[in-house]
Structures are given as C-alpha cells and as structure tokens.
C-alpha cells in the first residue's frame, strides 16, 4: 500500500508540475544531433590538410568550403572578441554586473540597425542631391551642433523635398516617402523586437507569488558558475557565509510588532518622502521649462558667433544633465532616511522615483519642442529641435564619463587612502541602467529631427562600454548582496518599453499626423502635416489600375476607424481569455496542492495507527 500511495503522490506532483511548468519531458538539445556531423567535418579537415585535390571538382568544392568557412570564422571572430570581454567581466563580477553590459550591447544593436537603414535610405540619396555648404567650420560646432552643421545631413532642415533622379528618365527616389517610410519601418521593427523580448523574459522569469522559498533557492540555485577568478570565488563564498549567518541571526530576533502610533508615524514618513520627491521632480521640470523658454528667446534674437553666444546654448543641456545626476543621490539619501523594511523595497521605490524624474524632464522638454518651438516664428523649427537634442545627447554622454570618473575612480582613491572603512565602491547597476534608458529615449525622439543621431549614439555607447569596463575592472569590487538579476532585467526591459518606447511612439504619431512642418526647409515643406505625403502618394496610386489594391488597403484598413475598433476589441477578448485560463490553472494548482497535503497527512495518520497497534 505504501508504494501505491507513493505512486499516487508522485502522479499528483507530476500533474502539478505539468500545469505549472508545461514541460516535463527532458528535451535533448538540438545541438547534440550535429555532433556526428561535426566529428566528420573535423576528420575531413585533417584529411584535407594532408591530401592534395586530385580533380577539378574536388578543387572547387574544397575552395568554396574553405571560403565559406573563412567568412564564417571571421564573423565568429568578431563575436568571439565580444564574448571574451563579457566572459572576463562575468568571471570576476558575476551575472548581475554582466547583465548591465549585455543590456548595453543590446541597445547598441538597436542603434547600429537604425544607423544602417538611415544611412542607406535617407543620407545617401541626400548626398546625391546635396547643395553646397557655405558656412565655415570652427571646432566649436562639435559641442553646439550649430553653425557649419546646420547645412549638413545631420539635421532635418537640409533634406530636399524633391524627387531625386541622377539619370535622365531613370529610376527616381521620392525623398518624402523615403524619409517617412524609413523611420516608420524602423519603429515598427523596434516595437516587434521589444514586444517579443518582453514576452520571452516574462515567460522565463515570472515567479509565482505564493510560497517563495527564500533560503532553499538561495543555497542551491544561486551559486554563480560564471565566476572563475580565484579571488572572486573566495569573496563570493565569504559573502554567502556572511549572508547565512545574518539570516540565522534574524531568525532569532523577536518579530517586531509595531504599535498603532508607530505605524501611523511610518506611513506619515513615507507620505512625506513621496511628497518631497514629487515636489523636487515638479520643481526640476519647472526650472527646465523656464530655462528652455529663455533658450528659445536667445534663438529668436539670433545667435552670435562669439564664445559667449555659443556657451549660452549649452546652459540648458548642462542644467538638465546636472539635475539628472544630482537628484538621484538626493532620492537615495531620502530612501535611507525612510528606513524601509526590506532592501528590495528601498531599491524599487528609488528606481520608481528616478524614472518619474527622468521621464517628466523628457516630457516637459517634448512639450516645449512640439508646442512652443513648433509654433514659433523660427525659420526651421525642426533643425532647432534637432540641435537641442544633439546637445542633450552629447552633454549626457560627457556626464556619463564624468560620473564614472567621480563615482568609481575618485571613490576608490578615497576609499583606499583617506577613509579606509569605506573600501572599494560597488558598481551601481540600477543607476547606470536608468542612464542608458534615458539616453536611448533621447535618441529615439531625435531620429525624426536628426537622422544621423543613432550613429552618434552608437559611437557614444561603444566608448561608454569600454570606459565602464576599464573602470569596473580597476576600481570596483564584486557586489556583496544577492541581486535578483532576472527580475531586475525584466523590469528594466519593461521600463524601456513602457514609458520610454511607447511615449516616443505617441510623440511620433502626434508629430507626423498633427504638426505643420516648417515652410522653408526639410523634405515636407509646404505640406499641412508629414503624413500628407503618404495620403497624396496613395491618391496618385489610384490612377494606376495595377496598384489600386494599395489604395484600397489604405482607405479601408489604415485610415478607417472601424478597422482599429474591431482590432482592439479582438485583442481585448484574446487577453481576457488568456487571463481566465491563468486563473483557472491557479485554482487547479491550489486544489491539487491541498490534495497532496491531505493525502500525506492521511498516510502519516494511518502509519501512526498501525505502529501503535503493533
């Protein structure tokens, strides 16, 4: 009977697992199937080195295989260099710090992709139809983005609205359509990539909230096999030892029961801290707004070429970056004052406050650009906005490097010479990731105004990667506390998607559909809105019978409200169905768990009775 009950228990557990994990069969990795193929290839390669090809076909086959192999190996060489750097970082500092660098390379890929398609479809055609640049180049343009750069491909205002064709009666390139479709398709692809990455992360890292076994998983699941440096291994063992001792000590402490008065005090402290932090964010936004209005007046008066005039243009970006750097320190000090119950709470609330600050500053700047600059009387408002964004991106990059210098290098000097009990600094993952998200948001906003901005951000990210890596290796120590990497990475990708990317998308829609482009410059001059280029093109397609279907699709699917309404309703129904399925599975899992407990209790009672009877 014992084996029977045990079998029944095992079946119940198996069924429970299948509901919660969906996979119970051990899946052999696909790469094992290729092992024999690989061994054959190694043998062939050994033979090829010894034998000489006897006939022509063998010659050709060998040459093509070798060429294919060479190109493949070149590609892998580049990946190998990257892999080697990531391996070295992971070996010494573990998975948590590695996740920052992996996130940085992921964002770098977005920028490389954007730069490539912008370069191929927008910048190269413009080079063919470029007007000569009469302005002079002084070195200061690298910082201010004005002057010589105004008449280059860097900004929207330089692009022509004509249809470019180099050869008489040859193929022509419509700049308006090229510009809007390139940007549109890039954002669509980014949207899909972000959506699928988020879904993948959620499905892998979703933790069921009930019964989170802290200690067991801490012991058996968190040893980082990536760490291969002897010193780092010893440090990690020491940290684990300290953590276990702390956990055991906490168990012995009495559970603190707060009296009603103390609870009210705590809630009041939290409320006050929130009011102070939101007030600081609002004050920062107001400061930025008034500063930017001043900035516009400076432009309307006409900028002077002297040093003071150029310097005045940099005041806004420097103030914005200073606010973005210093206020987070204030927030983290506020968090220390508040005395949260767990360090996890402290971390999440500090990150939330930082995100509110950064996104509200970006929001107020966008309001200023799209509502005030766009309706001002300037010659070419898109170029003005592009210059502002260029300066913001550049100053943010400089502040990032300075932050690394002060936050890590100087802190190490202080911690090892002057104030010895501070020790080496730890790499602040949250602050650095939020900086990356902010920089990427600025780049996405600026793509429409400055097509070369992704290229500039790509170079900036490259430099930041190597600077941070060198600074990390020389100045920092591995993290002491266990950092829930997967949960944090999921929330960072969610932050990249939700306020950042979706905000940029809504700005994009507003800009292309509602704002009037400037009369005197850019590819959309004279049109009531950017999107009118597409509507006019579709109208012109209706005259050709071969492309009437394009016009039909546009009229009935893209421009019709009924289609979007039906699509939204369908999506809501699908989401509701999935939600109900999840709830049903949760209930079933709960019931089965109860059954397991009941059966094991019944079994132990029966065993006791039998033992007593004997």
């Amino acid at each position, binding site marked *: 009977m014992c084996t029977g009950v045990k079998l029944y228990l095992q079946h119940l*557990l198996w069924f429970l697992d299948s509901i919660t994990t969906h996979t119970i069969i051990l899946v052999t990795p696909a790469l*094992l199937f*290729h092992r024999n193929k690989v061994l054959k290839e*190694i043998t062939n390669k050994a033979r090829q080195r010894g034998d000489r090809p006897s006939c022509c076909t063998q010659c050709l086959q060998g040459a093509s295989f070798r060429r294919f192999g060479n190109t493949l190996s070149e590609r892998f060489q580049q990946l190998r260099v990257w892999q080697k750097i*990531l391996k070295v970082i992971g070996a010494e500092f573990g998975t948590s710090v590695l996740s920052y660098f992996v996130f940085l390379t992921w964002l770098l890929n977005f920028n490389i992709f954007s730069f490539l398609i912008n370069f191929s479809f927008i910048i190269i055609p413009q080079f063919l139809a470029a007007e000569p640049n009469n302005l002079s180049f002084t070195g200061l343009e690298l910082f201010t983005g004005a002057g010589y750069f105004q008449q280059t491909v860097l900004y929207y205002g330089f692009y022509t609205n004509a249809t470019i064709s180099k050869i008489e009666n040859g193929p022509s390139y419509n700049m308006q359509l090229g510009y809007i479709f390139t940007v549109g398709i890039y954002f669509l692809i980014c949207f899909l990539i972000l959506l699928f990455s988020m879904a993948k992360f959620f499905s892998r890292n979703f933790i069921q909230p009930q019964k989170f*076994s802290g*200690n067991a998983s801490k012991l058996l699941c968190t040893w980082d096999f990536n760490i291969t440096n002897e010193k780092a*291994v010893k440090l990690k063992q020491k940290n684990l030892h300290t953590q276990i001792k702390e956990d055991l000590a906490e168990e012995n402490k009495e559970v603190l029961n707060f009296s009603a008065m103390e609870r009210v005090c705590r809630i009041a402290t939290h409320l006050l801290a929130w009011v102070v932090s939101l007030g600081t964010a609002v004050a920062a936004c107001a400061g930025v707004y008034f500063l930017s209005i001043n900035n516009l007046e400076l432009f309307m008066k006409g900028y002077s070429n002297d040093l003071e005039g150029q310097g005045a243009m940099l005041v806004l970006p420097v103030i914005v970056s200073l606010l973005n750097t210093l206020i987070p320190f204030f927030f983290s000090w506020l968090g220390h004052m508040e005395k949260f119950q767990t360090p996890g709470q402290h971390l999440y609330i500090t990150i939330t406050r930082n995100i509110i600050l950064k996104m509200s500053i970006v929001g107020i700047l966008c309001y200023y650009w799209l509502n005030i600059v766009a309706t001002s009387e300037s010659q070419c408002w898109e170029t003005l906005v592009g210059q502002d964004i260029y300066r913001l991106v550049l100053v943010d990059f400089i502040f990032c490097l300075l932050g690394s210098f002060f936050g890590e290098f100087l802190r190490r000097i202080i911690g090892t010479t002057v104030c010895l009990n501070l020790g080496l600094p730890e790499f602040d993952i949250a602050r650095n990731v939020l900086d990356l998200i902010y920089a990427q948001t600025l780049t996405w906003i600026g793509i429409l105004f400055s097509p070369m901005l992704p290229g500039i951000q790509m170079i900036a990210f490259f430099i930041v990667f190597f600077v941070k890596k060198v600074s990390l290796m020389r100045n920092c120590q591995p993290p002491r506390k266990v950092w829930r990497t997967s949960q944090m990475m999921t929330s960072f990708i969610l932050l990249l998607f939700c306020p950042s990317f979706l905000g940029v998308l809504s700005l994009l829609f507003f800009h292309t559909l509602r704002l009037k482009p400037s009369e005197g410059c850019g590819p959309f001059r004279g049109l009531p809105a950017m999107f009118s280029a597409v509507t006019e093109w579709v109208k012109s397609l209706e005259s050709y019978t071969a492309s009437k279907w394009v016009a039909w699709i546009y009229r009935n699917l893209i421009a019709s409200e009924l289609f979007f309404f039906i699509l939204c309703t369908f999506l809501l129904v699908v989401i509701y169905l999935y939600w109900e399925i999840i709830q049903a599975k949760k209930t079933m899992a709960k019931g089965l768990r109860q059954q397991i407990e009941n059966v094991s209790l019944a079994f132990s009672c029966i065993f006791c009775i039998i033992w007593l009877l004997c």
Partner: protein
Amino acid sequence: MRWKSKTPCSQKSEEPIQPTSLSLFLRLFYRYRDLAPQLVPLDYSDNPAVTLPYELIGSMPELKDNPFRQRIAEVFSEHGDGNMTLDDFLDMFSVLSEMAPRDLKAYYAFKIYDFNNDDYICKSDLEKTVNKLTRNELTPEEVSLVCEKVIYEADVDNDGKLSLADFQRMIIRAPDFLSTFHIRI
C-alpha cells in the same frame, strides 16, 4: 537514465548546421585537444577510445576554482570517476551553455548536488554542499540548521529528502538559475 543513449547515431540529416552550435562544438573539440595534444588525435572517424584523466579536466581555467568541479566531472564522466571522453566533455559544456533548456540544467544540477548518487538530495548531501559553498567556515550546528530549513521549505512529499521534482519546483522560483548555471567557453 542516460539521455545520451537516446541520441540517434546514424542520422542522415539534411538539417542545416546552426552556425552557433557548429562553432561551439569546434571550439570545444580544440579545447579538449589542447588539454593533451599527444593523446587526442585529429581523426575521429573510427571513434578512438580516448579518455582524459580528471586532473587535466579539473585544471581548465573555467573549472579550476569552482568548488563543485569534482562533482561536475564525476556526473558527466562515463564511469563516474571524473575521467572524460570527448563525448562526456561535449555533453558537459553543452548542458552548461546558454542553449540548454531549463529542465536539462535542473536535472544535471540535481545530480551534481547529489553526492551519494542515490537520486535524492538528503541532509548529508546538503551539508556537503553548504560546506563547499562557505569554505567550511560555518559551525556544524549552523550547517545543520541551514540544511533543516532548506528541507523544510522545499520538501513537499515530506520524506526528509529532496527528490528531483522538489528540486525542479524550487528552480521555477529562482529565475536566476538559468543564467548562473552557465559556463562560458
């Protein structure tokens, strides 16, 4: 149960070689060969029976400081003694790569922590694990306390030891496991 025996040996597959797995295997083969070039031939067409001793495997830079290197080598070796053939070596690093699915990694992590090979992680296995993780610096009472807490939390069928199913259930609640149970090569 060795899932390795289920792989079809004579598969005339027209599947395209995935570049990442091909490059991984080639790299692993050259790493294996670099450990003892005089023992490992370049020609593997007649399946030579070459086994490298544990001392060579354990001296690899990726493994030499890992506290569980001996258990890893024992789990993946054919006779459980730590001496590995090329097949065992490839298995080991493919399970520890980022491409292996979670259930496979969980299965092998369970076997690594099961020191006495009885298909259960009992209290003595956990004590050995804790000692390896903390360099024997905790007192025996503290070790015992920690092990009891782990068993209390994770043992659902109340038999005083952790089975594979208990371990897999624990893995679900630790999403970091996929990224920490990983060796880059």
